[in-house]
C-alpha cells in the first residue's frame, strides 16, 4: 500500500501530512518547531524516514533539525555555518560592498545515496555540506569565491542560494541557483563552478544578457532527463536542453511570465507546472484567480488548471519551494500558498482539493511516495 507524505514548512512551524494512494483523506501532524520559520523540510531518498528541517528566527539564528522516524520526533543537530577563510564582500542593495554574512538555510538537499550526507543552500549565498547527518557543516567554497561573486547582489528576499539539484546520472554534477546572481553548475562535486546563464535576458540589469545578475527564482529537472532543465526566472519561464549551457524562453501564452514555483510531472518529462504571479510589487495571482498552468509540450503551450481552485477574490502567492509532485501511478501535484492553504491534485492537476486551509504562510512543500 502506497503512502504519500507531505513535508510542509511554514512561517510558524512544520507540518507532516500523510495519506494513502487515493490522497483524499489526510492526517495532519504538527506544528513541529512552533513559532520558528521553517524554510525547508526534505527527506533522504536513500533512507525515507531520515528527514532534515531548516528552522530559523531572526532573534535566535539557525537550527537544523533531524528526524529518523519520518517526522514523528526530531532532534536539533548542527547550527554552525562558517564561511571558509575571510569571506570578502558582495554588492548590497545600494551597490556598496557588503560583508558576506550568514543568515539562514533556505534549502536542504539530501544526497541521493547516503542518508548522512546533505547539502545546504544558505543566505548569504553559499553551499554547505554535511557528511554526518547535519551534525557539522563545511562550506564548499568554490561557489562563493567564484570570480564573479563580489558583484552578486541580493534579490528582495536576500542573497540566497535556494535551489540545489543533484544529477542522478552523474555524481560529479551539482546545479544551484542564487537570487539574484543566476544559475551555476559544478562538474567536480562542488569544487569549481561556472555560471550557466547564457540565453537569459533580464531588463533590470544594465546589460540584459550579462553572465551573472539574473534573478533565477527556481529550477526543476526530471530525473530521467538530467540535461533538460526548466527555470522560473523573475520574469520568463526558460528551458535548457544542455544542462544549462544555453537557455531559451518557453513562456508562450502564460498570462504573466513572473512566478516562483516550477515543477515537472513525475512520469511525463515534458509536462511542467508553474503558478503565474502578478509583478512588479503585487506578488499575488492575477485577476484574483488561483490558476496553475500546465504545459504538456515542455513549455510554450500552456493551459490553466482551475477546477477546485478559487477563481475570485484570491490574492495569495506561491513561493519557490512550495510546489512538489509525488510519483504515485497517477501523479499527484501539491502546492502551498502564502495564505496558508495547501492544495493537492491526485490527477496530474486536472482537479484540486484544499487539504489544509488555515496553516501559517507556506514556505515549502516536499512530498514522499512511500511503498
Amino acid at each position: 500500500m502506497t503512502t504519500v507524505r507531505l513535508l510542509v514548512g511554514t512561517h510558524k512551524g512544520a507540518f507532516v501530512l500523510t495519506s494513502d494512494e487515493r490522497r483524499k483523506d489526510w492526517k495532519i501532524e504538527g506544528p513541529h518547531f512552533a513559532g520558528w520559520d521553517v524554510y525547508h523540510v526534505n527527506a533522504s531518498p536513500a533512507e525515507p524516514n531520515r528527514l532534515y528541517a531548516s528552522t530559523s528566527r531572526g532573534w535566535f539564528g539557525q537550527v537544523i533539525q533531524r528526524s529518523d522516524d519520518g517526522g514523528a520526533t526530531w532532534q536539533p543537530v548542527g547550527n554552525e555555518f562558517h564561511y571558509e577563510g575571510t569571506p570578502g564582500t558582495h554588492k548590497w542593495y545600494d551597490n556598496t560592498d557588503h560583508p558576506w554574512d550568514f543568515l539562514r538555510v533556505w534549502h536542504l538537499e539530501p544526497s541521493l545515496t547516503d542518508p548522512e550526507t546533505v547539502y545546504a543552500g544558505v543566505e548569504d549565498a553559499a553551499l554547505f555540506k554535511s557528511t554526518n547527518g547535519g551534525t557539522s557543516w563545511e562550506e564548499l567554497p568554490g561557489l562563493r569565491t567564484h570570480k564573479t561573486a563580489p558583484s552578486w547582489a541580493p534579490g528582495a528576499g536576500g542573497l540566497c542560494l535556494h535551489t540545489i539539484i543533484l544529477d542522478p546520472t552523474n555524481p560529479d554534477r551539482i546545479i544551484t541557483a542564487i537570487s539574484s546572481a543566476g544559475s551555476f553548475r559544478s562538474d567536480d562535486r562542488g569544487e569549481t563552478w561556472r555560471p550557466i546563464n547564457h540565453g537569459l535576458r533580464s531588463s533590470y540589469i544594465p546589460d540584459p544578457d550579462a553572465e551573472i545578475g539574473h534573478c533565477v527564482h527556481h529550477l526543476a529537472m526530471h530525473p530521467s532527463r538530467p540535461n533538460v532543465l526548466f527555470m522560473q526566472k523573475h520574469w520568463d519561464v526558460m528551458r535548457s536542453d544542455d544542462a544549462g549551457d544555453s537557455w531559451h524562453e518557453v513562456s508562450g501564452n502564460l498570462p504573466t511570465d513572473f512566478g516562483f514555483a516550477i515543477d515537472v510531472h513525475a512520469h511525463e518529462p515534458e509536462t511542467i507546472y508553474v503558478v503565474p504571479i502578478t509583478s512588479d510589487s503585487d506578488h499575488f495571482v492575477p485577476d484574483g484567480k488561483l490558476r496553475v498552468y500546465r504545459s504538456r509540450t515542455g513549455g510554450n503551450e500552456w493551459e490553466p488548471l482551475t477546477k477546485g481552485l478559487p477563481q475570485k477574490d484570491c490574492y495569495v502567492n506561491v513561493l519557490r519551494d512550495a510546489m512538489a509532485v509525488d510519483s504515485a501511478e497517477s501523479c499527484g501535484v501539491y502546492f502551498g500558498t502564502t495564505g496558508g492553504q495547501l492544495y493537492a491534485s491526485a490527477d496530474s492537476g486536472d482537479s484540486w482539493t484544499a487539504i489544509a486551509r488555515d496553516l501559517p504562510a507556506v514556505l515549502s512543500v516536499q512530498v514522499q511516495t512511500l511503498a
Partner: protein
Amino acid sequence: MIRVELPANLRTLAGVGREVQLQVDGPITQRTVLDALEAEYPMLRGTVRDARTKKRRPMLRFYACEEDLSDESLDAPLPEPVTAGREPYLIVGAIAGG
C-alpha cells in the same frame, strides 16, 4: 541553583518550560551562567550568543532585578538575589514585528 528564564522559541527548542534551574560552580556571572546553560542544553548553543565569538545576538537582552545587564561586563558578579536563587536571570527577545 540559578534560575534562568527563556524566551518562548528557546523553550520550544530546548523542550523546557519558562524557567530552567542551573548548577553553576565558581563565580556566578553572566558568562558562567550562559556557559552552564549551553552545557546543560547544547541545542541552545549559538542561539543566545554567537557560537564562535560569544557575542550576544543582537535581538536579545539580558535582564535581572529590573536592570538591563546586556551591556555590562560578562564577568561581573550577578546581583545577590540571582545568585541566591530568589530572582531569575532573564533572557529576553526584543519585541519586534508588531
